[in-house]
């Protein structure tokens, strides 16, 4: 079995999740089984999965695994159907806070007016129609909030947070459908009196109970169980580490042999222009020191593979496997000529984040606009909140400064990328660095002409200078502006490059990418007998109560 290691498959996906989804599509298309192993608890996971191309069967979430909730027939729990253990005398709707308050009337012993006692605050998912319960804040008869039950979107209590008398979270428990806690997390004081999450306890449904200091250790145990469950002498389990912080040490310490691959989704250093000497990217530092402890290192571009080999000289193979895959069906569809698109249109699909430097793109537009007055720029992407939306604020400032309100539009993240790319002429990238840039690959595949700074990794490989676009000196938005003007003033050149953009996309066809994966599978196959030869399974004979086999 092939496993992809990740934390979550949330609604707002980053490049890593998109890469996994594309890989999943490719594997599925080639009848190659895989499972995405997710570490984090998410009550909306299965709703998010339903909205993605993954099926429940293709994902094993750590919490689901122990809770026995990998497959659950969903039901809608409506706020008024929550069983609070007693009759509710009246409800008070509080739609502004997406909640319903449940009360009991308590007769006054002195004969005065009845008092009302809050039983629970029943919170529902903000956008749910009909309303579905998200959580219940539960109160005892003495007014203490003693627990909050969190519901999975499939309609069962998945997790409970237990409160201390001083109204802090004391313990958290994750339970089976019949309420048995299987995973517990404890918030305790340390030796200097600070409260923190000090311990996890796993009450495995098999009856064994284990203590872990942190979720990483629990995830390691989970990986061992998964590796054991799918272990076969015929074939190595392949673990692809898509987020190094989730298993960079765990994969090197698995109890049973497996084939492990470190997948780089980003630059390995902090300086994209000095890959041979710069300080290592914090995310990859440990795994690069451990590089020889894995079986393979995967990069999305040949350039990155080359840099890794040149600098670290790992004794394990480096595979170049694009993280983007252009489905076969795409190559059958009609190409769209530049003349049929919105004239002089530039787009960028990227997070509105500082490292994307989109303000420089807007500056380039300001310059180009002087010679191409009808030039437009449309930006699509999540707004990064860091430093109070600094990146977004800077873009807006440049627009204002140059009075580009008519030409430049900043949109939200879009799921209509393909349509937008089909209507645009130029796809521009001004990032300081990239791990690959799936959006650029897709834009080129839709015939957009690519313009990018010369940055690692991805843009300067996806764009082949002078063929499907142009590579410009890093940070030179003046040159970018000149290139835009040149392209829009030379429609033949523009069309030629667009044609090449379509053609060069073949580099990322299913066939090409599958071949790259096959090389890794072959390596796993080749190295497996040697791994098996030195593996001694654990003793099972003679360990039972009467000396029997266990």
């Amino acid at each position: 079995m092939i496993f992809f290691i990740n934390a979550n498959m949330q609604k707002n996906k980053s490049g890593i999740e998109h890469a996994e989804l594309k890989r999943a599509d490719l594997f599925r298309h080639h009848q190659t089984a895989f499972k995405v192993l997710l570490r984090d608890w998410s009550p909306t996971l299965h709703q998010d999965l339903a909205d993605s191309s993954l099926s429940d069967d293709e994902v094993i979430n750590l919490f689901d695994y122990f809770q026995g909730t990998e497959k659950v027939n969903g039901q809608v729990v409506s706020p008024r159907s929550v069983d609070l253990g007693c009759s509710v005398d009246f409800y008070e709707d509080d739609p502004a806070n997406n909640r319903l308050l449940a009360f009991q009337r308590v007769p006054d012993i002195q004969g005065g007016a009845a008092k009302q006692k809050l039983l629970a605050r029943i919170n529902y998912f903000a956008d749910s129609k009909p309303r579905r319960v998200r959580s219940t804040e539960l109160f005892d008869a003495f007014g203490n909030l003693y627990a909050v039950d969190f519901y999975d979107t499939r309609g069962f209590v998945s997790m409970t947070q237990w409160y201390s008398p001083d109204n802090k979270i004391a313990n958290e428990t994750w339970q089976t459908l019949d309420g048995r806690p299987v995973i517990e997390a404890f918030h305790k004081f340390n030796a200097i009196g600070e409260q923190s999450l000090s311990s996890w306890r796993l009450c495995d449904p098999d009856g064994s109970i284990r203590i872990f200091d942190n979720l990483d250790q629990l995830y390691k145990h989970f990986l061992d169980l998964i590796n054991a469950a799918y272990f076969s002498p015929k074939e190595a389990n392949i673990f692809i580490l898509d987020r190094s912080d989730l298993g960079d040490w765990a994969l090197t310490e698995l109890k049973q042999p497996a084939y492990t691959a470190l997948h780089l989704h980003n630059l390995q250093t902090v300086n994209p222009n000095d890959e041979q000497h710069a300080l290592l990217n914090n995310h990859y530092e440990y795994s690069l020191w451990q590089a020889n402890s894995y079986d393979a290192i995967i990069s999305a571009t040949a350039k990155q593979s080359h840099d890794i080999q040149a600098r670290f000289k790992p004794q394990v193979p480096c595979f170049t496997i694009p993280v983007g895959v252009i489905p076969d069906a795409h190559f059958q569809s009609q190409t769209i000529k530049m003349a049929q698109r919105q004239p002089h249109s530039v787009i960028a699909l990227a997070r509105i984040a500082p490292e994307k430097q989109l303000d420089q793109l807007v500056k380039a537009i300001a310059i180009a606009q002087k010679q191409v007055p009808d030039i437009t720029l449309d930006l699509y992407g999540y707004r990064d909140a860091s430093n109070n939306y600094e990146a977004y604020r800077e873009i807006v400032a440049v627009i204002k400064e140059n009075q580009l309100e008519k030409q430049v539009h900043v949109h939200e993240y879009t799921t209509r990328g393909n349509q937008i790319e089909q209507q645009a002429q130029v796809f521009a990238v001004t990032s300081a660095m990239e791990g690959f840039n799936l959006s650029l690959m897709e834009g080129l595949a839709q015939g957009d002409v690519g313009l990018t700074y010369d940055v690692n990794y991805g843009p300067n490989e996806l764009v082949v200078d002078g063929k499907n676009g142009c590579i410009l000196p890093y940070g030179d938005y003046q040159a970018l502006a000149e290139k835009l003007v040149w392209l829009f003033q030379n429609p033949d050149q523009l069309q030629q490059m667009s044609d090449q953009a379509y053609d060069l996309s073949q580099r990322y066809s299913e066939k090409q990418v599958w071949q790259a994966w096959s090389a890794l599978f072959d390596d796993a196959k080749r190295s497996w007998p040697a791994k098996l030869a030195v593996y001694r399974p654990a003793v099972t004979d003679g360990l039972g109560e009467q000396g029997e086999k266990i």
Partner: protein
Amino acid sequence: MFYFVSENIFSFNSGTEFSQAKRVQLFNAKGQQAFYVARDYNPSFHQSAKQLDLPDDQLLNMYDYFQNALSVTRRQIPVRFARTIPKRDYHIDGIDANYSLIKSHGRIIARATIAPLTVGLMGNMIYYDRFGNTVATDYWDWRGFKSSTQYFHPDGQPGPQIFFDPAGRKVMEVIRMNISGQLFPTMYRLFNYHGRDWRFDSENDLFIFFMNEILSQQSESSVIINDRPSMIGAVAHIHGAMAKFQYLHDGHTVDSDNPLRGRLSDVLTPLFTADAPAFTGVITATEAQRKILARRFPKMAFYCAPDTFVPQQLLQTRPRSLTGRRLHHLIYFGRLSEEKHPEQAIYALSAIRKKIPDASLEFRGYASSADFLASLKKIVADKDLSDAVVFADYALGPVLWQSLDQAQMVIQTSTGEGFSMSLIEAMAHGLPAAAYHANFGPDVIIQNGENGFLVKNGSYADLAAAVVKVFQDHALWQHLSAGAYQTAHRYDADSVWRAWQQSGVLSDER
């Protein structure tokens, strides 16, 4: 159907539990189905019940009921072979007969406590975080299943507790939070009981619900006899019983010498005031107490029925003469608690030894507190009696019987009693008794010069004199011992059952 109600069965029981347990046995032996009902959670409940010879089908523990564990075949889970402890990952470091430490890579992650009175069987598992905080304790039922998990608040006080059925499903929860700044159990929750969840604000509220459920499932008419004064309020609120009684195992006033006008003991006050209408009547062990109560509370009904019986097995054993016994050896037998004044037995011994220098005293019973036991030991040391006084362990059955068979006399120093069951039990072993003439019981059991001596309440000098008289006169001892055996025979099962039948408690025409 009879339900005899109390809190629990302990590893060290008081007379109340013994009396209740014996009554359960007597009624069942006489064809009247009766249950020992207990409110409290106790993972060793069935072990303790077994020590009192109570079979599972005569037990009704509230937690058992909601945990679907009224009748579970016992499985012995040795700590060393418990699935709970994955031995491929952890070391089990046996420290002593009481516990083992569970270690992971050298760090203690848990402590396995051995179930009491077992060899190496799972009792409870206490789990620790890396700072040594206890994060959870799993309690294992003596019958071999994980019965509950106790969590803790960050300050170390007990927090929520989750209860499981033998199949591991969550069935109950107890929440512990603050009421006016102090930690209490503030909620009892039942899950999926009869298809829905339930919540109760106190354990007694849950108990009332529990008993109402039991009674509503019962087609026969039901009679409840409450044995524990602390549960009067709860029993008062139970619906559906044909009759409800309170059995008094003790005197009813603070000053036992003033039962007619003295202040009622606090715990019994509700029985005679607010809760009185809820009870059909009150049962006393002695006619004397019954009469006084009837005078004091003319509107209430009072009954008298015996507190105990002597098992046939004991009555059939051959009387033991003085030859098999340890001469001049006294036994004090019962709980060592303040109100029973065991210190006065030491004072009496001191006086006795002036005449009979080799007189000795054996305390047989558990102490109400370690402090109190220490205070008794200090008196013994101060009086230079360390060689003459032994504090023996609480014992039941053969161990206790052997002890009683070897003594020469039983001494009792209570200044107030409900009956004095221990005197009957001692007499079943041929022991003459020396006791204070206190309310209620001793004068029903002891006939001066026939099976022992009653002396002025509180006068240990008189007590000592009576003992000296018996110790100095073997013929007298022989006469009293024979009388003691005879007295015990008056409390054989048949006689006691007849007394119950004639008491009016069982009769329908109350």
